[in-house]
């Protein structure tokens, strides 16, 4: 069957049935023919023997009495048996006594042969001794057409017809029967091909029998069910996945949209801020330039009044003029401090590695130069390194150390300490003094502009310094706080935050 794997099952089945039928028939016919031929031969041999015996018995008298005519008469009767082609009766001496030959028969043997039956070609030859109780009287010779081949041919003809008939019947029968056999298979095949073509896993093969094909259909259906279940599962998880992807995409789009919106707002806001900054700068410029000029006039002409008209200005008026002048100077200082406050908010933050200790030392040196008479112990710790804007840090330290300097001016053994508490990368810097201190209840007001915790008569100041320091610290992303006790001194702590990415634009705090 392997030789013809392409033929459909239907045909293969037919071929199998026909081949089996033919083989069975051939074997049966062969056996029958062989048996029949055997019987045929046996019956012929028996027949010829009997005939020879009969001839011998009927001719024994003729031989005894040497009457060839009688023997001839007996032989002549053989013409009624056309298949006996020749017959000879020999006398005891082996001479032909009487003979018979059908027309066209082969020459007769001259001498009798040994007793017995044998087949010579398509003839059967019998030699039979004729005897009475005492002596051998002669021999009968019979030759008959065996016609084995004829018979064989006849059989073959019959076999062919039978085969033909049998095959036809087998064919008809099998074409009926094989339908019942093949149809379930074909049904499964049809379903299988439809499934594979249309990918429709909901199809089921019809179970048409309870045999192995039925089992096959069951298994096939089971498999389909499993595939269908898995496909459904797969499809549902695919759908789930698609939904999730869509969801995520929507979320991403939303994020992008929000980002764009945010960027737009940042841009607008930046523009606005830049505009505000520019305005602020213009304002500061005006303040710096124009607000000071009238003050200078007030101060200058007050002084001129005293200098140019010493006789005409009474002492009381001179006192008033002195108040006017000190007020203008305070105003000038206020303007200066306000400008400083706005200045620390403007411009890029330029971080680099700075030594706060060194800056502190310089600030202290300036203070000492300004007030050389002050006895004050200042200790600046080593290694106060920071990543910060040097200009702003100087302004901050000027204010903090200046404050410490100022508020410890009435302390007997004034001490200022500048140091840092380190926690890994993060440092908390501090400026400590043992001066006037303040009540922690008012600590929340410390860093507001123009907020003062001490009367002007006590300590001079505009109340802008700590606001400036706070702004500087905040611009660095740090924090500032204080700890104090009235009469015991104050500590100002500040951190400077993490350096921002280089190039990040810095908007005014």
């Amino acid at each position: 069957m392997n030789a013809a794997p392409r033929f459909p099952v239907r045909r293969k089945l037919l071929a199998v049935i026909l081949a089996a039928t033919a083989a069975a028939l051939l074997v049966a016919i062969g056996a029958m023919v062989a048996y029949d031929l055997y019987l045929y031969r046996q019956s012929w041999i028996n027949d010829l023997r009997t005939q020879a015996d009969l001839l011998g018995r009927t001719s024994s008298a003729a031989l005894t009495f040497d009457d060839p005519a009688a023997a001839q008469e007996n032989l002549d009767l053989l013409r009624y048996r056309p298949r006996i082609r020749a017959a000879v009766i020999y006398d005891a001496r082996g001479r032909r006594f009487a003979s018979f030959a059908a027309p066209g028969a082969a020459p007769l043997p001259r001498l009798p042969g040994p007793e017995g039956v044998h087949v010579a070609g398509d003839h059967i030859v019998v030699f039979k001794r004729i005897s009475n109780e005492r002596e051998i009287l002669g021999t009968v010779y019979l030759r008959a057409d065996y016609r084995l081949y004829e018979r064989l041919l006849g059989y073959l003809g019959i076999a062919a017809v039978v085969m033909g008939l049998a095959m036809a019947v087998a064919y008809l029968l099998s074409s009926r029967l094989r339908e019942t056999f093949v149809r379930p298979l074909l049904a499964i095949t049809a379903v299988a091909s439809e499934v594979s073509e249309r990918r429709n896993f909901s199809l089921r093969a019809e179970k048409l029998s309870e045999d192995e094909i039925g089992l096959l259909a069951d298994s096939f259906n089971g498999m389909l069910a499993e595939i269908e279940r898995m496909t459904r599962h797969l499809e549902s998880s695919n759908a789930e996945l698609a939904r999730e992807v869509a969801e995520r995409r929507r979320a991403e789009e939303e994020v992008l949209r929000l980002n764009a919106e945010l960027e737009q707002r940042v841009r607008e806001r930046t523009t606005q801020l830049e505009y505000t900054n520019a305005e602020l700068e213009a304002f500061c410029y005006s303040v710096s330039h124009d607000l000071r000029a009238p003050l200078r006039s007030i101060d200058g002409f007050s002084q001129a009044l005293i200098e140019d008209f010493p006789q005409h200005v009474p002492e009381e008026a001179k006192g008033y003029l002195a108040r006017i002048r000190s007020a203008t100077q305070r105003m000038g200082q206020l303007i200066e401090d306000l400008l400083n406050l706005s200045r620390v908010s403007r411009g890029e933050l330029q971080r680099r590695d700075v030594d706060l200790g060194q800056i502190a030392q310089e600030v202290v040196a300036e203070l000492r130069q300004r007030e050389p008479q002050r006895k004050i112990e200042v200790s600046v710790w080593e290694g106060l390194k920071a990543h910060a804007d040097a200009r702003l840090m100087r302004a901050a330290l000027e204010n903090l150390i200046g404050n410490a300097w100022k508020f410890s001016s009435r302390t007997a053994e004034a001490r200022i300490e500048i140091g840092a508490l380190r926690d890994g990368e993060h440092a908390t810097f501090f400026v400590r003094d043992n001066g006037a201190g303040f009540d922690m209840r008012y600590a929340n007001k410390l860093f507001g502009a123009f907020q003062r915790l001490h009367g002007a008569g006590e300590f001079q100041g505009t109340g802008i310094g700590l606001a400036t320091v706070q702004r500087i610290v905040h611009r660095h992303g740090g924090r500032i706080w204080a700890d104090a006790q009235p009469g015991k001194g104050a500590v100002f702590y500040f951190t400077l935050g993490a350096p921002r990415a280089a190039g990040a634009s810095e908007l005014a705090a």
Partner: protein
Amino acid sequence: MAEKCILLVEDNPDDEALTTRALRMAKTANDIVVARDGAEALDYVFGEGRFAGRDVSQQPAVILLDLKLPKVSGLEVLQRLRADPRTRLVPVVVLTSSSEDEDMLKSYESGANSYVRKPVEFGTFVHAVSQLGVYWLLLNQPVPQRWQPSP
């Protein structure tokens, strides 16, 4: 040869009066010419407009220049002075209320010889102006006449 003058470029009459007063108090003998805006200052040095026909070979000993001026700003005046061969070498002291770093930087970049802030307090102001007078009129050696551009 007559004493060279001082050119004070100042739009504020109060500041003008105070500066003149401070210079007088510092015993400055030089004439003080006042220009009330940048255009007038340029007219003076280049002998144009109101000052047409002035001998421009005679340039001020020092120009005290305010930055915030009507018409032509102080910085522009400074740049024009430095661009012209006749006034290229005239000492210019920027005398202003502004303490903005940027003003200071631009002034120096434009060729100012000094940058002096007008303090609010009159005593300090007098001190600053008298120091200016002493420095630019007495101590400072001007560019020799032979290097001055011929008229």
